[in-house]
């Protein structure tokens, strides 16, 4: 991609072993002095070949593997796979399972956003708020550990419902966790978003306007920060999202600062959804239906709003014990390729700004490679 205009420039290899890189990915940067003139993604450090591995495992075994696609936000994909298979079988799952799945999905989103807050604070040199975000995330992980028995990878939302019944003190536990997170997040927000260093590094930097963002293929918070209020949870409601009240936070300028603000607002909206959903989880209700071992031929599709944008899961069955084909959408691909190229073309991006802009887009490296 390096054309003639960049032939005199310096090529710098950025990553994969670099604290500013968002995970195990690399970039080739073409520099003119301090300024970045072109950036090209070098992926593949995290390739495992999920689509092939899922085609090699039976339907019920795939609940364990599908979501490992993106380690920062596994719950969205877990829900997506469960939904896709539910649709393929044309089953309606018990109400209680739907509510619990939603709570899991929202807690997953919060954990992902808080993990991003850590990375973002670190890349502008504000370690303090990073530490607080990890502490707030720890509260989410503890909730997961108590309810589903794992901290990161949960295998809890399965086709047909949820894996096992929630503990007796589920409601108190959830509300207490939500309160704790809210308290910490308020502090982080105040300390990070009002900080003048943070503002200077992010305001007016990395601007992607709404129309452009769509054409670049961006979804999720980065699109909403540009003023496009597009959220799958509202546009194409799944589970019980049409039965809860929540807003879609949007920004105006589409710069790094707005993206940060939108993510923090989203955490509050997620907490709002969790507080509504937990009221509907009644002890004693059924939580899972047994699914047949073999699945009839057909296609199942699920669209879920993950922490970074729209996941689309497409499963194809030709009968039998294993899926014939599984295809997943990579939400971070536009963020790491088209979006960052767009910013570099339109603005003067220096080498010091590059990690900050990339961080503010919150890409998840493994989901590009699969």
């Amino acid at each position, binding site marked *: 991609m390096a054309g003639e205009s960049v032939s005199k420039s310096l090529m710098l290899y950025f990553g994969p072993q670099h604290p500013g890189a968002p995970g195990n990915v690399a970039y080739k940067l073409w520099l003119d002095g301090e300024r970045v003139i072109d950036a090209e993604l070098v992926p593949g450090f995290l390739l495992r070949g999920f689509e092939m591995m899922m085609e090699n*495992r*039976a339907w*019920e*075994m*795939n*609940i*364990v*593997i599908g979501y490992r696609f993106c380690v920062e936000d596994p719950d969205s994909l877990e829900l997506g796979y469960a939904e*896709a298979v*539910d*649709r*393929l079988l*044309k*089953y*309606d799952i*018990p109400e209680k399972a739907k509510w619990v799945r939603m709570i899991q999905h929202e807690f997953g989103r919060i954990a992902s956003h808080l993990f991003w807050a850590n990375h973002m604070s670190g890349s502008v040199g*504000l370690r*303090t*708020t990073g530490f*607080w975000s990890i*502490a707030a995330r720890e509260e989410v992980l*503890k909730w997961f*550990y*108590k*309810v*589903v*028995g*794992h901290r990161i*990878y949960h*295998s809890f939302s399965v086709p*047909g*419902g949820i*894996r*096992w*019944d929630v*503990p007796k003190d589920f409601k108190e536990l959830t509300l207490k966790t939500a309160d704790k997170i809210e308290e910490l997040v308020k*502090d982080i927000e*105040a*300390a*990070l978003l*009002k*900080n*003048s*260093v943070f503002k200077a590094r992010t305001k007016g930097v990395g601007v992607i306007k709404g129309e452009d963002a769509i054409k670049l293929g961006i979804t999720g918070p980065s699109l909403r920060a540009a003023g496009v209020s597009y959220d799958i949870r509202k546009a194409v409601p799944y589970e019980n999202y049409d039965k809860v009240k929540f807003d879609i936070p949007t920004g105006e300028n589409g710069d790094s600062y707005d993206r940060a603000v939108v993510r923090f607002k989203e955490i509050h909206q997620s907490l709002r959804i969790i507080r509504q959903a937990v009221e509907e989880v009644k002890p004693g209700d*059924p*939580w*899972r*239906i*047994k699914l047949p071992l073999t699945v009839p031929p*057909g*296609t*199942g*599709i*699920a669209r879920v709003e993950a922490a970074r944008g729209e996941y689309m899961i497409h499963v*194809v069955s030709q009968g039998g014990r294993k899926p014939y084909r599984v295809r997943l959408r990579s939400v971070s691909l536009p963020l790491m390729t088209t979006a960052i190229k767009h910013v570099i073309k339109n603005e003067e991006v220096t080498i010091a700004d590059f990690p900050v802009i990339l961080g503010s887009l919150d890409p998840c490296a493994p989901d590009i490679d699969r």
Partner: protein
Amino acid sequence: MVWVTLKKAAKYLFRRPYTRMVPKSEPPFKTDHTRGRHILDLNKCTGCSLCKMVCPANAIDMEHIEVEEGKYPQNKKKIFPRIDLHKCTYCGLCVEYCPFSALSMTDVTGFELFTTDKSTTLKHPQELAVPPESKYRVTITKAMFLGVLQNPQVKPAGKGGSHG
């Protein structure tokens, strides 16, 4: 101003430290559902191999063991699962799909399983049968998966997604 950050931070100066002092003064954090090392009940296992077939990590293989005459009559061929704890992903599918409730999981995790010799984590059936020390709990049992609606009055969901 950066003062806002400092002001908020000052509050935490006077709080109790958040740090868990593992392992000095606290054991590692575990819960009632922590998924860890398995226990095998040799008196229940029939050697049906279902756990082996359902394991997504290929961590289970069946192993023949020598036992005295008359022991474990339910298991004709005397084959029992051998679990590779260094391959297992601790998903609990083997517990869920075992039809005879022979497997369950405990909260013995990587903290206790830490080793300098990789061969110690390949657990043969006899080793799996030994319950861990009493301070560890049995966390995941087959009972948790019962209560699934077997013949549900499933109404076909209006939102079918089939085409192609």
